[in-house]
């Protein structure tokens, strides 16, 4: 596994707050290879969010090198970063961030609008394909308010997949969901990772979510304190079956 998707070398990020300098990241180094399912863990204040912003090309490090798919991000302009986000990264957010009063299909299409090479027909086909891979093809014309939380998150995952990015970047993607739905989402993530070979970087602070990934990077106070392979990957599907039956009443 030599094809590195991410390469982080001594990433530092400092913020100036008034007269004080807050050092959110104090030299973070790790690589992510294609096909990995990695979780980044840490309590609040550990620099998780800052690292996520840098990984997502929304922010640039103060110091250090960040290579995304062999492209050095630090030298890019705002517009080039936008293009990189469009082509290489699929975001999944905690709060889904779907456009209200807009159909699921159009929500999935959204990133494709910023890709000038595609025709309207191609856009629609790709969006339908992405919805199919999250098993929501029959809900294309539903608006977010007509979908459950889990379904909304799946639409968001479809949106992340639609541009065939090299990496899916999830930020607390199960944070707003109950255990059962969380496991469903994790099962979907595992499928995407294992069956389609998608690289997934999943930021979370829940240890049981981390158990589903193949590797965990632990952050504390802006530094990597633990970077371990998960020998015993838990299957989200099995975990789902092991849950007591839904006590609907």
């Amino acid at each position, binding site marked *: 596994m030599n094809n590195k998707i991410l390469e982080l070398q001594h990433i530092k990020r400092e913020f100036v707050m008034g007269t004080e300098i807050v050092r959110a990241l104090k030299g973070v180094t790790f690589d992510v290879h294609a096909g990995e399912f990695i979780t980044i863990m840490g309590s609040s204040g550990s620099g998780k969010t800052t690292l996520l*912003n840098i990984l*997502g090309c*929304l*922010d640039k490090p103060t110091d250090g090198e960040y290579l995304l798919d062999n492209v050095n991000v630090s030298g890019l302009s*705002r*517009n080039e970063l*936008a*293009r990189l*986000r*469009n*082509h290489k990264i699929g*975001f999944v*957010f905690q709060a889904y*961030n779907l*456009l*209200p*009063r*807009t159909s699921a299909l*159009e929500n999935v299409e*959204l*990133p494709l*609008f*910023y*890709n*000038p090479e595609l025709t309207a027909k191609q856009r629609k086909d790709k969006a339908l394909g992405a919805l199919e891979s999250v098993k929501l093809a029959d809900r294309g014309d539903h608006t977010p308010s007509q979908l459950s939380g889990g379904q909304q998150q799946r639409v968001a995952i479809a*949106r992340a997949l639609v*541009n065939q990015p090299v990496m899916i970047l999830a930020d607390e993607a199960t944070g707003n969901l109950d255990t059962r739905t969380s496991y469903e989402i994790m099962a979907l993530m595992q499928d995407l990772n294992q069956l389609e070979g998608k690289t997934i970087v999943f930021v979370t602070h829940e240890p049981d979510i981390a158990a589903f990934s193949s590797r965990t990077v632990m952050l504390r106070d802006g530094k990597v304190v633990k970077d371990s392979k998960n020998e015993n990957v838990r299957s989200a599907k099995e975990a789902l079956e092991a849950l007591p039956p839904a006590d609907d009443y």
Partner: protein
Amino acid sequence: MSAINLIRIALRALQRNKLRAFLTMLGIIIGVAAVIAMVAIGEGSKQSIQSQLSSMGSNMITILPSSNVTGGVRIEGASFQSLTITDVKAIENNAEYVSAVSPVSSTKGQAIYGALNWPTSLQGVAPSYFDIRKLTVNEGISFSDADVATAAKVCLLGQTVINNLFPSGESPVGKVIRLNAIPLQVIGTLVAKGQSSFGQDQDDIILTPYTTVQKRILATTYFQSIYASAISEGMSDKATNEIIDILRTTHRLRPADDNNFQVRTMEELIKTLSSTSSLLTILLTAIAGISLVIGGIGIMNIMYVSVTERTREIGLRMAVGARGIDILLQFLVEAIIISITGGLIGVVLGITSAKVITLTLGWPTMVSESSIMLSFLVCAFTGVFFGYYPAQAASRLDPIEALRYE
């Protein structure tokens, strides 16, 4: 990003907030409609004043006696007797730019028919007066040069006089009325002209040959005024100068003497009235223009609110690959779509309301193409101008902040 994509994105965003988009549009709709309707009213009144003036005879020239100094005393013009038949004949024979000339010798009196009477003004004129004042005979005939030569006791009645002396609707033609004890036979009636632009009743009048007034009523050889027609409106100035030259000769004025008469054309009056109605148009347009600007500010206001409200959407769009320029264009196109759609609706509404005003209130209106073009351009410009700042504010958002915005 292609233009079609841009418009599609903007349209979808507007569709999500139909009511708000419409309310924003309303400012522009009212502004544009107001501009078009107001300009139509202004132009309409201008046109009606102009047509009224030309019905009075826009190439008409009036010659009046002027004040003069006699032994250090200034004497009022009207009582100064300087215009005679010699002047009239001289103008008639010598002036090249004058097509018609008529003396006016007028007096006031009580017209009596049977048991009814009516105070009115009697004007002694030449047959050419009908031409100069654009008067037409309704019933009967006009008097002739022969009637003038014999100071015939004939007259034509204006509509107001007829209404008061012949209220039962019988034809006055052939009847004999009395005016200041002189019997006059009615040989014709005049087509009603209505009020003049100054509110004067132009139909409260009796016309007779000027000799009849001069010899039988006033016993004078002077005229109160002389009316003439220039051969065209544009020739009024030349005709005026010509008349001044001729009258200075007939009055034997030395080069150093002031004119003892004055010559007036309608041109000044036309200018005054046109500039009044132009001012009216400008005033109405300005008021309407202000409402258009307010409509524009409405757009800006709503777009700013929209940018704030959609901060997360903007953050998301940026996260999935929208560049600053894409966001800027999206909001700008939204503003332009609102203002242009509003402008189109406003144009239709403006034209309709101008028509409705004419139909219901009877005000003359004239929708001018230039006002449509202008208000449409202004509202397109408004969209760009007032949409730009909110759009720029949106494009400068930091995607990280925008995504976390609550």
